[in-house]
């Protein structure tokens, strides 16, 4: 008779937190083992020394540590920006464009106002312009979503291209020297519009993002707005039932999300690079989505998820030079680790049972 085995996937009733963390821990361990096997098979190198090199690449010297933390701050800041939107189940994959447009607004202020206003006023204008530009980039898709239920994923994605093209256009307008195709360091001699340094050149953005993390944590967990966002994200019907004005929450949250992205654009251009390129955001608008989801929208946990991704990507450069490996090799390792971490959530939510088919004789 046909006694074939059948797998049956069902939702778990409940899992105590320590078991959930045991599953996650096992996943990371398994990921490291698989990474080691892959490393040895593909390169012949000792996996331990690869791991050590990654760590050295990220924290090997004081300067490296500072840069790593600064990179962490930038990624974390953008992740914090997209989090309220995603918590509301609004698929904002336009952070890339929102940051870039903030950076473009900053650049415009730095270049156009340098000769007319004192430095402090230029900086005030930069802050306002960057936040406003990001907010507008967030507002547009939200408005259309709230009014006509347009697809926010496509809308925010397309807004990225508009931002990139605008930036490309203005880079040519402001290029220095003519024909160079890039802006170069803005106001290099006068340093007008450069955000003030605190301690060293890295600390300002780190502090801003640290404050932002705390504020966002409180905003999401202890404010009425945060509560509204959580309810709207869970069910719009429940939200209307509770008297929450869904349209208003969607628009307000996306304006906030865009505004924080704009602020990150300000930090990138005014505080870190002092120039604008179309690739200044470097895909972090998308990585941020992953950081946010991996941390389940908890700003504190996001510190660790963004740290993981930043360390891996910083280490990648080090591996490629130290072992003469392709730069993509670290991406492979990152991919494996993420695969296991995300995959472990499946085993936390579901259980797999095996049952025999009931093909008994009549």
């Amino acid at each position, binding site marked *: 008779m046909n006694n074939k085995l059948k797998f049956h996937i069902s939702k778990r*009733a409940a899992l105590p937190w320590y078991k959930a963390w045991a599953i996650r821990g096992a996943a990371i361990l398994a990921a490291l083992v698989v990474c080691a096997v892959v490393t040895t098979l593909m390169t012949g190198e000792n996996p331990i020394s690869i791991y050590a090199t990654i760590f050295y690449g990220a924290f090997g010297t004081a300067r490296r540590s500072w840069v790593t933390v600064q990179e962490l701050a930038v990624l974390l800041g953008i992740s914090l920006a997209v989090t309220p939107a995603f918590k509301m189940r609004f698929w904002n994959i336009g952070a890339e464009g929102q940051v870039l447009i903030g950076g473009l607004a900053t650049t415009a202020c730095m270049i156009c106002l340098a000769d007319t206003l004192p430095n402090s006023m230029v900086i005030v204008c930069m802050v306002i312009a960057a936040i406003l530009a990001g907010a507008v980039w967030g507002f547009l898709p939200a408005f259309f979503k709230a009014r006509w239920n347009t697809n926010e994923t496509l809308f925010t994605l397309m807004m990225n291209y508009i931002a990139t093209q605008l930036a490309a256009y203005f880079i040519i307008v402001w290029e220095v020297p003519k024909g160079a195709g890039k802006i170069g360091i803005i106001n290099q001699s006068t340093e007008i519009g450069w955000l003030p340094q605190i301690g060293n050149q890295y600390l300002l953005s780190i502090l801003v993002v640290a404050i932002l993390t705390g504020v966002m944590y409180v905003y999401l967990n202890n404010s009425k707005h945060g509560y509204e966002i959580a*309810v709207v994200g869970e069910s719009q019907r429940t939200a209307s*039932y509770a008297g929450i004005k869904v349209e208003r929450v969607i628009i307000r949250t996306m304006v906030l999300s865009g505004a924080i992205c704009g602020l990150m654009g300000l930090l990138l251009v005014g505080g870190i690079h002092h120039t604008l390129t179309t690739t200044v955001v470097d895909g972090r608008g998308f990585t941020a989505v992953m950081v946010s989801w991996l941390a389940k929208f908890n700003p504190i946990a996001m510190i660790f998820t963004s740290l993981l991704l930043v360390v891996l990507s910083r280490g990648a450069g080090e591996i490629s030079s130290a072992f003469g490996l392709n730069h993509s090799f670290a991406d492979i390792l990152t991919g494996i680790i993420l695969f296991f971490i995300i995959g472990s959530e499946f085993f936390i939510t579901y259980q797999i049972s095996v049952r025999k088919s009931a093909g008994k004789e009549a």
Partner: protein
Amino acid sequence: MNALEPVKTAIRMEHITKRFGSVVANHDINFVLKKGEILSLLGENGSGKTTLMNMLSGIYYADEGQIYVNDQPVAITSPKDAYDLGIGMIHQHFKLVDVFTAVENIVLGLKDEGRLDLKKARQRIVEICERYGFEIDLDRKIYEMSVSQKQTVEIVKVLYRGAEILILDEPTAVLTPQETDKLFAVMRNMKADGKSLIIITHKLHEVLEVSDRVAVLRKGEYIGDVQTKDASQQSLTDMMVGHAVALNIARPTPVNVAPRLVVEHLTVYDDLGVKRLNDVSFTANAGEILGIAGIAGSGQRELLEAISGLYPISEGSIRFHDPKASENAPPKELVGMDPMAIRKCGVSMAFVPEDRLGMGLVGSMGMTGNMMLRSWRKGKGAFLNRKAPEELANRIWKELDVVTPSTSFPVRRMSGGNVQKVLVGREIAQDPAVLMTAYAVRGLDINTSYTIYNLLTEEKMKGVAVVYVGEDLDVLLELCDRILVLCGGQVSGIVDGRTADKRQVGALMTRVEGDSRHE
């Protein structure tokens, strides 16, 4: 088990039991579908018809019992198994790809040998349509089709996949009388061709018109079956609703009855322009439980949502008589206000919606978070006040014996009864003037049901106007002071809960449009 059945059976289900948590949806059911017959599966809402059929189509798997198809024991663990056995089910909600044409939808997901030959497939589809008399434009996209055309595509799809046994889950619920006639003609053609059909319905005249045999389920039990020629509307109603069962729900005599909510000429349309409520008028009195009976989808949901400001109202008025206002103060008109506005103007209305986790509660939050759904606006400034909701959550946890590890445990992961306790507990804690509940005991075990009945009666004695939308007539007749019967969006009668009998209410419920021709 009768091994010497003279007619070969298409389906035989023996001792089938299916439980969802503590709720028994199907209990020890023995069910037979003969080859080449049309069988009606009849039962009230929640009697377990769809659950039973879903075990044939591979959506659920029976906890106990054995299914035989063509007298062979089988295990149907997935819809694919069902297809392989020649069982096809047409669900109430169609599963079609909107932007594909009829042909594309019909061939979708089939693994034929070699390349997909659309021409050959179309040839076969045309043959099927001609053989059974389907009228369908094969190249039209689904989103351009009417509901009845979509249903036709679903049926053709199932036939194309070689189904010999067809299960139609309330196929006529969405059809006009003319379309229904057409569907029945097609069903008879299929029967003539040797197919076996099961039709789930609760419209009695259709049962009498189309089927050869009727099987009746009540509260998850198989009551029996009769040949249609030996049945009448009355005999079927009696089988369906059963004899009055004494439940012994306490029903104290109302005191200080006064109008609280006066609804007049209420008419609403849904977003497709279909009239959902038609000139509904009634008064909900303080100190009374007003029951609302009716077959599912007769406008109960729309009525409660319209009163709470969640459904657009095109005509009519809803006036609230405030018990705290002075006697001569005019009642407040609620039409045109959203839930927030209603709340702000001092009308405390509690609403336990049918969709507990999709509307009444936030599944991912714990009890405390869900208590805040009613009180989140009360915190200081921009911040939430968690203390009061936490206290309320603890109180409900204790007083209603909610089984949960903590007040932060996601309510989605609680059992149905506990979810309902959280919801009802929160709504009652608002100290409402009007308390509306939709299917408050659906899916709950007996003890929890009684807890809810007692809570509602307590509220009534406190002078609250309680509106109880229910499906179990026994409960409605023992719990409610008056019962309003809805049928097709209209009020078909308001009866006294103490004197009305089950047959009377049952008759009012099934007085469907188009039914008159059979009476």
